[in-house]
């Protein structure tokens, strides 16, 4: 079952390598504000903020205000749901492709069958 639906498609959200790197950083380092996240980037703060907004709309990160700053954090359980679904789906297709490959190999070896 596909995880239920915030407005931004999660797969679109995680397709982008910058957003994947952001997610990994937040997952490994915990809560961060935008300027901490900006640190290794050459891209602008508005660009990072836009990526964070997409991740938030996809339900993959959440933010909270502490005084004047906004802290971002991953939605770990949602990420897990998404990837459980992805790996289940991929396993299904990998098995189908393997089965098709074997069928074609047999067919090539013995054209009469």
């Amino acid at each position, binding site marked *: 079952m596909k995880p239920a639906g915030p407005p931004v498609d999660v797969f679109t959200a995680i397709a982008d*390598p910058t957003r*994947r790197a952001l997610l*990994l950083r937040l997952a490994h380092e915990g809560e961060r504000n935008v300027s901490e996240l900006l640190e*290794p980037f050459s891209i602008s703060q508005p660009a990072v903020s836009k990526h964070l907004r997409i991740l938030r709309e996809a339900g993959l990160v959440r933010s909270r205000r502490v005084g004047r700053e906004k802290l971002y954090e991953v939605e770990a359980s949602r990420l897990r749901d998404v990837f459980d679904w992805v790996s289940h789906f991929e396993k299904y297709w990998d098995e189908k492709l393997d089965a098709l490959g074997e069928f074609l190999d047999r067919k090539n070896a013995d054209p009469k069958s």
Partner: protein
Amino acid sequence: MVAPKPIVIRKKRFYPHPPEDVWAAITDPYAIAEWMEPNDHQPVVGHKFQFRCDPGMCGAGITECEVLEAEPQRRLVWSWVSVSKDETRQRPLPMTIAWTLTPQEGGTLLTLEHSGAENTDWLTRNMMRVGWGYMMKKMISRVLTHCDAGEFRPGAIPLQKRYYTCKTIPDNYVR
């Protein structure tokens, strides 16, 4: 401790390009820099090389690799260790990235097998799963538009469009 169950990530993609061009796309360090990260790759068995980007985005920013197999236009295998940002942490067990090229009518089937994926945490593993898919679908396809007669012509993906930055990368890494 019980050894974790082996996990292999598999991806396949057909490209309407001859094996010599697909081989160039996955071996030429300039081509790899465009779809992956700055590197000092050479398709020579035993060659030790690294992928580098600025630390922060991708952990320590260093992936240590070695070419385990290199059969031109057929198969390329790398060992793969992401170096931890935290130097006190134990070095992770290596993973293996195997590329197989199969000539087909009108092009080449490229197969990726990423094994040892159980040696990394579930989130990194799944990010890599998605990442390989995106690279094979979007990035390598784009790099292939700049490959001809087994030669790669840089400029398929301009530096400013790549996700990594190169402020701390030594000059001997191709970017």
